[in-house]
């Protein structure tokens, strides 16, 4: 006996209601803090005190303009941008070269080197900061952007090498053999074949690493203490201390800091998913 199609569909719809309820519940939980941040950023303080959770009334751009003009946020935003771009450039080039060696050559110490990378992914940055702080003081880089750029570039290498090795290995060997018969040396092969073919992996890697650098707090906090050299995250965290009386202004600041990553996410959701699940799902 077969139920008529429409009745079957209706029954399926009914059966999916509990599932939908659970998913809606978790979606609301996931969205709520972002909603709160967004609506608070557009409220006046008296409005926020009266009505913490509803929509803004009156709606105001004052906090956003204040955050952008009065404070150091534009400066911190610029610093975050410089630090993120510079760290990504260094770490990507350096890691790609290392990953190429591990994936394409056979040499003594190769497996050891690769396993060391995997092990280093576990080391907590909190363990490393004190000696690095003393080092940066000695070479006079404290409160200068290059200090955190060097540290981030180094911290990102293990994961980057790991991800790129797994990608380089998946490229067909024939291509490389053909290129070397045609007279390309290994550096040419790296530059003209491996890298262009790895664009998807490189983009994924850059997106995931950008998320890490942009959002990092501990290292930025320790190495950039000077007000004009801060990046956004420590800036905003301490901004809170300065402006505890104006919550909407603080939320405006966090909203501004979040927008670049939300944009990156909207355009490249797939890249995040691929990069973050690398190594777990074949």
């Amino acid at each position: 006996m077969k139920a008529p199609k429409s009745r079957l569909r209706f029954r399926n719809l009914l059966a999916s209601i509990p599932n939908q309820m659970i998913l809606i519940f978790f979606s609301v939980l996931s969205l709520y803090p972002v909603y709160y941040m967004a609506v608070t950023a557009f409220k006046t303080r008296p409005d926020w005190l009266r009505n913490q959770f509803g929509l803004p009334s009156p709606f105001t751009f004052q906090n956003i303009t204040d955050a952008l003009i009065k404070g150091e946020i534009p400066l911190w935003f610029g610093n975050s941008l410089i630090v993120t771009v510079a760290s990504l450039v260094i770490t990507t080039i350096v890691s790609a070269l290392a990953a190429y060696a591990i994936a394409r050559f056979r040499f003594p110490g190769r497996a050891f080197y690769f396993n060391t990378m995997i092990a280093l992914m576990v080391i907590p940055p909190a363990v490393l900061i004190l000696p690095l702080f003393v080092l940066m003081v000695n070479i006079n880089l404290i409160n200068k952007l290059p200090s955190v750029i060097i540290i981030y570039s180094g911290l990102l290498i293990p994961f980057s090498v790991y991800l790129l090795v797994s990608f380089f290995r998946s490229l067909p060997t024939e291509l490389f053999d053909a290129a070397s018969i045609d007279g390309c040396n290994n550096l040419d092969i790296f530059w003209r074949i491996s890298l262009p073919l790895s664009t998807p992996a490189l983009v994924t890697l850059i997106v995931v690493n950008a998320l890490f650098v942009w959002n990092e707090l501990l290292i930025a906090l320790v190495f950039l203490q000077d007000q004009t050299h801060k990046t956004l995250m420590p800036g905003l965290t301490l901004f809170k201390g300065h402006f505890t009386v104006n919550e909407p202004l603080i939320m405006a600041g966090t909203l501004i800091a979040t927008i670049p990553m939300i944009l990156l996410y909207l355009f490249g959701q797939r890249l995040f998913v691929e990069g973050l699940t690398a190594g777990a799902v074949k």
Partner: protein
Amino acid sequence: MLDKKLSTGTGITFRKIEPYLYLAPATILIVLIFLYPIVDIIRTSLLQNNPDGIKTFGFTNYRLVFEDPVFWEALSNNGKLLLSVPILTVLSLLIAILLFEHVRGWLVYRGIIFMPYILAIPVVGVTFVYLLGLNGIVNTLLRGAGLEFLAQDWLGSVKWVLPSLSIVIIYREMGFGVVLFLARLMSLEKEMLEAAAIDGANFWQKHIYVTLPQLSGVIEFLIIVELITMLSWVFAYVFTMTGGGPGFASTVLEFYIWKHAFAFRSPGIASALAVVLLMVTTVLIVLQLRLRSRSLEEGL
């Protein structure tokens, strides 16, 4: 592989050292950022100040650490945070399976549930300070539901501060778990699930007996990644939400290292604490090696 004679003709010696040249820049940075600091904290942790002003090697810093009740409290706080890993795993699994059943709009749900993971921890932290405050949404909802007696200062109570922190961490990390499990579920063979359904297995039987065993690898992956997170990456939550308090009720090892290094200015103690944290994470290094090299085993 590429051991044909190179067109540059520099001969066998160049070919032998060539891979090391590619590794050199990465190696320099790794030595500077990882190896040098690790050697240095071990050395600093063993240096002690003697009354006569001369530094000698000894275990004073470690003795002070092990006699410090706050160290034990911080260690046990890290341990308590580990308890959120199973909760996080089960919730992620549940949501991933629901999404996998192709409920209407699953792509939208996935996009929304993953979003907290791209928010910066300081942003999440600052926002939750308001949401969990005395007049925050949580307490307002409780009062609205007539549960006034449950309302409290969630981050200011010794009893509730760690569970509250755990919930915020779960909130952010769950997006990662869901996406990870969903990616693996979508790569499964459909035949077995269909066969189970034909044999009359219900929803739960189907997933418990057919899906779960095939997910064991990726479940193990998430658990290890999250164990690492709970030990090595919770500083930003603690710093932005509680400052380690009330008292030391939410102080974790990372935060305590930072305090000793930069607030108390006691590098010896900070280094000894860092070495202890490093020892704890060594267990995870072993797990990590097993896990990560397995997926790349062929050929290495």
